[in-house]
C-alpha cells in the first residue's frame, strides 16, 4: 500500500506509442507500466521485459499432476484395493494414461492460471488504479513514477514524445480489494496520500 506520484501520458495510436516507448527508455526514464486496450505484439520486447518463467511453473505443475495421478491410482489398484477387471494386470498402465493425461493438463492449467493471476495481480475483487478511463477502450497509457522535483520536466518530456494528453497524479501503485463504484473508498485512499 503505497501512494506514489506518477507522470501519465495518453497516446491514441500504437504507431505513436512504440517510438515514444523507445525515446522514454533511451532518455533514461524507468517506465512504471504501459496500459493498452488490447495485446500489442512486440510491446514486451520494446519495454525490455524479461521472458516470463510461467512456463517453468507450468511444467512443474504438469509433472505434479502426472505423479499424483500415477501414484494415487497405483496405490489404490495395487495396495489398497486390488481388483481383477477382465483379466487385466493389477497395474494396467494403458488404462491409466487417459486419467494421467487429464490430471497433468488440469494441474498445469489451473496452476498456471492461478500463477498468472498472482503475477499480474488480477483476481476477483482485486483492483488497481486506472490512470485514464479510456485505457481499456481505445487509448494507450504510459505511466512513469516521478518525484516532486522532476514531475514537471518529465511531463514536458512526455508531451514531446507525441502524447495527446499528459498529467501528473498521485495514485496507489499496488492493488487492493474493493469495488470501484464505492467512490468513497477510493477517495479516502487519495486523501491518505
Amino acid at each position: 500500500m503505497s501512494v506514489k506520484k506518477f507522470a501519465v501520458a495518453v497516446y491514441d495510436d500504437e504507431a505513436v506509442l512504440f517510438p515514444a516507448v523507445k525515446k522514454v527508455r533511451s532518455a533514461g526514464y524507468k517506465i512504471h507500466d504501459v496500459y493498452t486496450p488490447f495485446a500489442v505484439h512486440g510491446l514486451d520486447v520494446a519495454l525490455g521485459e524479461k521472458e516470463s518463467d510461467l512456463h517453468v511453473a507450468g511444467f512443474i505443475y504438469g509433472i505434479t499432476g502426472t505423479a499424483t495421478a500415477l501414484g494415487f491410482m497405483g496405490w489404490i489398484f495395487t495396495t489398497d484395493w486390488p481388483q481383477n477387471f477382465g483379466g487385466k494386470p493389477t497395474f494396467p498402465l494403458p488404462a491409466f494414461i487417459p486419467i494421467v493425461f487429464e490430471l497433468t493438463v488440469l494441474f498445469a492449467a489451473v496452476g498456471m492460471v492461478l500463477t498468472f493471476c498472482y503475477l499480474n495481480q488480477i483476481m476477483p475483487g482485486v483492483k488497481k488504479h486506472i490512470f485514464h478511463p479510456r485505457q481499456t477502450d481505445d487509448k494507450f497509457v504510459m505511466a512513469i513514477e516521478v518525484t516532486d522535483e522532476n514531475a514537471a520536466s518529465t511531463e514536458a518530456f512526455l508531451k514531446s514524445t507525441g502524447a495527446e494528453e499528459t498529467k501528473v497524479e498521485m495514485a496507489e501503485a499496488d492493488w487492493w480489494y474493493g469495488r470501484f463504484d464505492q467512490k468513497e473508498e477510493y477517495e479516502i485512499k487519495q486523501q491518505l496520500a
Partner: protein
Amino acid sequence: MLNQEFKIPAKLKTTSLVLLVIGLITLGAGVATLLFSHEVVSQTRFWAVLLQNSIFFLLISLASVFILSATSLAQAGWIVSFRRIPEAIGSIVWVLGIIAGAIILTLIWTDNYHIYHWLEKGNIPHNSLNTLKNFFLSKPFFSIWTVVVIALWGWLGVKLRNLSVQQDSEPKGSTKTYWINFKYSAGFVFVFALTLASTIPWLWIMSIDSHWFSTMFSWYTFASSFVSGMSMIMLWILYTKRHGYLDIVSDEHIHDVGKFMFAFSIFWTYLWFSQFMLIWYANIPEETIYFKIRMHGPYKFFYWLNIILNFVCPILILMPRPNKRNYFVVVLVAVLIIFGHWIDFYQMIMPGTVGADWQMGWFEIGILCGFVGLVIWLVANKLTKAPMVPQNHPFLKETIIHIS
C-alpha cells in the same frame, strides 16, 4: 533482397545426384537379386520396401500442399515469408504420385497377394470379416480411386504453385489471384479430407492387414505424414537461409514451424495411443493380432524405437522456447522426426507383408537414399524457377513484421 532467386549450391546438387544414383543402383541390384529370386520372401521384401518409401515420400510432400491450403484458408500471414518452399515441395507431388501409383497398381494387377492378402483368390468370399469390404477392396474401385486421387493431388499441388508465381507479375496491390488461390485451397482441403484423411490410407496401407481395421488409422497416417512434412519444410528453410536466401525469415517464423513440429508430434502420439488403447482394452483377438507381432513379436525394436523417436525426443527436446529458436537443435529434431516416421511407415507395412523375415539392410537404406536424393533434386530445381519470396502477396508486410 526480396527478389532473390535460388541457385542450387554445387554441393547440394552433387549430394542429391549421388543419393539418386545410389538409389537407382540399389533398385537395379534389387531387381536382379530380390525380384527375380526364387524365394517369395525376397520378392515380397522388394515390393514392400518400394511401397513403404514411395507412399512415405508422397505423403510427406503432400503435407506441404495441406499446410499451404490450411494457412491460405485461415488467411495466415506468417507462412508467406517462406511460402515458396512448401509450394516447391507441393509441386513435385505429381512425380512422387506417379511413382507410388505405378508401384501400387502393379501390385494390384499382378495379384501380388503377399502384399495385399485380399487379392488372393477365394480369400474374400470365405471370410466373413472381408465380405463387407468386397466393393471397397475390389480391383476396379481400388485402381480408379488411386488414379483419380493422385491426379487430383498432383494437379492441385502444381496449381497452387502456379497461382502464386502468377501473382508475382501482377500489378502491386492486386488481390485477384489471392482469392482464386483461396478457392483452390478450399477445394484441396475438401479433396484432402476425402482422400488422405480417410480412404487412401485404408486402401494403400491398412488393407495390407485386411482383416484388421481401425477407425483411427487414417488420422494416424495423416499426423505421421504432416509432422514429417513440417520437418522437411523446416530443413529446407534453414538450408536456404544458411546459404543467404530468405533473410526475411526470422527466428519468429522458425519458432512457429518448430511449434508445429512439437505440437503435431504430440498429436501423433495421441492418435497412436488412442488406436492402441481401445484395442488393448477390448482385447478382441482379430484386433490384438496387429499389435502382437509389433509389440511382442519380431518388430519389438522398431515399435519402441518409433515411440522414442517420435514422441520422447520431440517433446523433451522441443519443449523449451530457446530450443525452438536454436537452428542446430531444430535441424537435429527435424531429421529425427523424418527418420522416425519413416520407421513408423516401416512398421505399418512390413509386419503384414514380410512378417518375421524382416530385414533392415542394403536395400532398405539404398532405396531410402534414392528417394531422399530424388526429393532434394526435384525441390531444389523447382526453387530456382521463381523468386524465393512471393513478390506481390497481400500479406508480405505482415509476414516481415511477424512476431510469434
